[in-house]
């Protein structure tokens, strides 16, 4: 059967190598895609998955190797050419245009025209139809920057799906989606599969791999580990293939949420209201406690985080830190109070692209120290190296510009940045987006130990498992309001899901 399939390979990459300064990102990698299959490409952060995607779609030139589409040698030199050949890519970071309307983003380059003139009405209508498949009902004439990362991600996927390509490439499409969107997406993928389209799917969520994929290819440090039918590779073996070792901690021991002792409150929010975004929310975070925030897309989690970090100012309500009322007009005020926020949209609000990893990690600490007390480059380097080691950030050294890191590694740097200032309250908005399973475990462990040392945590996440693992208590949001608070025995994925869905 294998034999038969290889004759029909729709898309085949052979012996692809790619060298970046100091990193061999891909080392003679082979990869095949068959029509009508979902093929998962898996590996740690920095394993080379995105690089492979970029090479097959012409964004990056390959050093060596060949690409064949339907047995024809191709060498696209940019995305436009790849698209013409029938390859529709959705890249890891949301690469859409925030200044254009949602509809225009969906159809850019393929706008419906009459006599050479774009028919805007028609395009908006088409866009609405398309998004309906994704159960998304938004104003498509509004500019994309209006919407949260999750919606942008859905739009990006919709754009790829609507391209009617032979090959659909999805690089971590589900990173900031929650379960219901993921289900919708998978329904669509199954339909495409039945139409004979080949789908490449990259993710760090292993359950999703088993839900949808037919085959798996594993990369490790730029090398091909193997290609397996899904049935041949159970979860444990898969992790072993990815990490090159067994992972004991996470899979086995799902630590019990420690019962919060009677602790004094660190943060008390009462009746906080920000026009159009936060509606009368009250919550408390105690010292050493981890509080989770759950909710659907657009439920207002991000906005609560922003308000607590002084980015949006409250119109009414009160924030108290250690029982003292505070006004947070800007992030600096919040940092003064020992609050740190790891933002949801790492591309626009997190990384400072051209600056080095060292500078990106040291910046928050430097801001806290003030501009006068300069942290010398040596000290910055020591600090950075410490985190590069403990978070397994894949980089040759700390001087690499952060924009050249793989997505997951960027996320680790941003986390490191905020942990470096040892905050009293760390707010994490979708903290583990795109982080691989090994690092995920380590980060959860690290954060838990920080909580034990007295740090408090507020985590907004779409991943319910993660919330349950982290949190002592979970606040559920809907329509910018707090609708429930779960703790102790009542805390489980099911119960959270239940309160989210409750009408």
């Amino acid at each position: 059967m294998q034999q038969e399939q290889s004759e029909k390979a729709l898309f085949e990459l052979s012996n692809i190598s790619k060298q970046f300064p100091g990193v061999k990102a891909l080392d003679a990698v082979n990869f095949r895609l068959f029509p009508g299959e979902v093929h998962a490409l898996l590996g740690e952060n920095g394993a080379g998955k995105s690089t492979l995607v970029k090479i097959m779609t012409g964004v990056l030139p390959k050093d060596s190797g060949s690409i064949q589409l339907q047995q024809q040698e191709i060498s696209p030199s940019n995305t436009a050419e790849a698209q013409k050949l029938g390859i529709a890519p959705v890249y890891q970071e949301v690469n859409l245009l925030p200044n254009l309307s949602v509809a225009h983003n969906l159809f850019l380059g393929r706008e419906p025209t009459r006599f050479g003139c774009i028919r805007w009405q028609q395009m908006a209508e088409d866009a609405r139809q398309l998004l309906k498949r994704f159960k998304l009902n938004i104003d498509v004439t509004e500019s994309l920057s209006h919407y949260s990362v999750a919606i942008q991600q859905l739009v990006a996927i919709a754009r790829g799906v609507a391209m009617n390509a032979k090959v659909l490439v999805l690089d971590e499409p589900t990173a900031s989606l929650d379960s219901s969107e993921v289900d919708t997406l998978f329904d669509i993928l199954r339909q495409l599969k039945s139409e004979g389209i080949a789908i490449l799917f990259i993710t760090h969520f292993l359950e999703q791999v088993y839900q949808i994929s037919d085959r798996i290819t594993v990369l490790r440090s730029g090398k091909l580990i193997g290609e397996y039918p899904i049935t041949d590779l159970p979860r444990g073996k898969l992790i072993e293939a990815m990490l090159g070792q067994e992972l004991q901690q996470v899979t086995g021991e799902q630590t019990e949420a420690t019962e919060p002792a009677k602790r004094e409150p660190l943060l008390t929010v009462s009746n906080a209201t920000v026009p159009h975004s936060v509606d009368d929310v009250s919550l408390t975070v105690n010292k050493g406690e981890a509080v989770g925030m759950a909710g659907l897309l657009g439920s207002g989690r991000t906005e609560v985080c922003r308000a607590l970090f002084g980015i949006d100012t409250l119109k009414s309500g009160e924030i108290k830190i250690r029982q003292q009322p505070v006004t947070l007009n800007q992030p600096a005020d919040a940092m003064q109070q020992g609050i740190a926020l790891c933002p949801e949209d790492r591309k626009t609000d997190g990384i400072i692209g051209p600056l080095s990893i060292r500078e990106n990690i040291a910046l928050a600490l430097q801001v806290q120290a003030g501009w006068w007390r300069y942290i010398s480059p040596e000290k910055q380097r020591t600090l950075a190296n410490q985190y590069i080691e403990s978070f397994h950030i894949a980089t040759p050294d700390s001087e690499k510009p952060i924009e050249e890191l793989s997505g997951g590694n960027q996320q680790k740097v941003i986390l490191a940045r905020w942990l470096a200032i040892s905050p009293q309250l760390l707010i994490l908005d979708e903290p583990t987006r795109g982080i691989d399973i090994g690092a995920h475990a380590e980060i959860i462990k690290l954060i838990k130990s920080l909580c034990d040392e007295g740090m408090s945590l507020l985590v907004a996440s779409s991943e319910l498992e993660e919330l349950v693992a982290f949190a002592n208590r979970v606040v559920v949001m809907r329509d910018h309001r707090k609708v429930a608070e779960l703790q102790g025995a009542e805390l489980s994925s099911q119960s959270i899901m239940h309160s989210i869905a409750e009408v």
Partner: protein
Amino acid sequence: MIARRFVPLLATFSLLVVMFIIGGFQFEGFASFQVVTNLLTDNAFLLVVALGMTLVILSGGIDLSVGAVVALSGVLCAVLISEYQWPPLLVFPLVLVIGTLFGTLMGSLIYFYKLQPFIVTLAGMFFARGLATTISEESVGIEHPLYYAVADSGIALPGNAWLPSYAIIVLAVLAGLFLLTHYSRFGGYVYAIGGNSQSAALMGVPIARSTIGIYAMSSFLAAFAGILYTFYTFSGYALTGIGMELDAIAAVVIGGTLLTGGSGYILGTLLGVMLMGIIHTYIIFEGSLNSWWARIAIGLLLFVFIALQKVLNRSSQRG
């Protein structure tokens, strides 16, 4: 209900009207047809240049060479028509082609060598003006029946107002650019590149073709404005349009286009040009300011308009 994104345009337009009314109360003859047509006539070539600049700025670039290209194309026209006796109808297409090639060259340098538009077009400015002075240091007059014929054609409007034919051509250019920018795929690409050229590339926008096309278009329009300018003065002169690029940029930005690219409207540029024009007209009507007070007044009026625009936009966003 007007869409919120058109509010800036509306704000600029209402400022224009307010200025017109104030001037009308203050000076006899200000609120007249003639002043309106003069606005169009006197700013015709600036408008053409500014339209090209709008495209460039929408794409996140800038074109500093336009003023010099206007001068170069004027000098070329004048020299070829007057000194070499070439027929104008042959000269114009030739000059337009040269202008377009010049823009293509700048666009290619910008795209293929990843050079910054500001600097490439600054060098382009030096080059075009240098070439113009090399061709003829002196201004060259044009005596040709066609010029007189065109100067005498136009539409007479009530109130002794006169809309010359070339102002009408400019309106056609405006319409063309409006369609190109807001109703063509190319226009979409311009916005896309301006929004984020990396993302645009990853979405499959043909960056090479579009970037080069944008600069070619801008130079084409500048060359066109240069030809218009010869009808305006019956001559070509190498020092024409010094600083015109800044006027064009200012008009584009006052018209609500973001210099960072990706956001703005063609009609905004029209309003921006008109707003700057009406400020100048107002100062001339006032007539008692000496050189420096005139400068200060122009600066202050511009500031007041920009500030008012900000206030109007902001309050509309809240409401």
